[in-house]
């Protein structure tokens, strides 16, 4: 119990820390890494236009299932009046405050969801095959290239999937934090086929 009671500095601790070693053992064709924590805000806004763009500093994408770069982060379409804005240069509180101030006059709302989901980066020539074992979205590079996104199901977890490359070899999976362990196990299990065995 002594170790359990030891006082720690307030250092952020990633929920997938215990998976780091397992991820590191994967071959490059099915690379999985936990994304560092970033600030994320769920933005709700009825109508987007010049005003919103000016206030937010980004044109929120209005094409369903797409994302665009936004400052140091991304703006991801989640629904006809809902986006996920991320930032790697602001704290969660700063991002929420800034976005909230921008959208409140336009009838919008903003909620800090930085810890609601964690990100997993999937890179390599076979990650598409790994995803296809549990994701019904068509991930062909012609269909799901850079800038595409989808809220969908992977295995039995709801995810937001972002396409980062036109070659179909680079994806980000955002998953609810409480499902992160499940999804990490699930991905490792799916990657087993592409992992050289020692025997």
């Amino acid at each position, binding site marked *: 119990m002594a170790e359990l009671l030891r006082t720690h500095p307030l250092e952020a601790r990633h929920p997938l820390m215990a998976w780091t070693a397992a991820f590191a053992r994967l071959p490059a064709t099915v690379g999985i890494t936990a994304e560092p924590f970033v600030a994320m805000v769920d933005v709700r806004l009825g109508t987007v236009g010049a005003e919103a763009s000016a206030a937010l500093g980004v044109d929120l994408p209005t094409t*369903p*299932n797409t994302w665009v770069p936004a400052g140091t982060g991304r703006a991801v379409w*989640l*629904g*006809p009046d*809902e986006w996920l804005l991320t930032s790697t240069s602001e704290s969660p509180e700063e991002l929420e405050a800034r976005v909230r101030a921008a959208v409140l006059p336009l009838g919008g709302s903003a909620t800090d969801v930085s810890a609601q989901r964690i990100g997993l980066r999937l890179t390599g020539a076979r990650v598409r095959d790994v995803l296809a074992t549990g994701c*019904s*979205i068509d991930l062909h590079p012609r269909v799901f290239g850079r800038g595409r996104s*989808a*809220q*969908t*199901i992977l295995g039995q977890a*709801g995810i937001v999937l972002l396409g980062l490359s036109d070659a179909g070899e680079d994806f980000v999976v955002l998953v609810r934090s409480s499902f992160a362990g499940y999804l990490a196990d699930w991905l490792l299990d799916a990657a087993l086929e592409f992992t050289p065995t020692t025997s």
Partner: protein
Amino acid sequence: MQLIACPWCGPREEVEFSYGGQAGVPYPADPAVLSDEQWAHYVFFRDNPKGRFAERWNHSAGCRRWFTAIRDTATYRFERVSRLDDPKPVT
């Protein structure tokens, strides 16, 4: 195992959706003035046709939007989907 066309996200697998039953059953403007029978009909009674049916669906694993569909309950085929802010679909 249908592909259901979310009015926003496009065709997605059936598993991403949840069903909301008959469409066009609004919450009564003033429940207090309804008879027990009228209230019971709002709470418990829904149409159950064999054939075309106007229904509510939710893209629950996707954009979480509710929408309306005209679907044939005998063939399961979706004839039309529309957003809630579209003009009321007619069966």
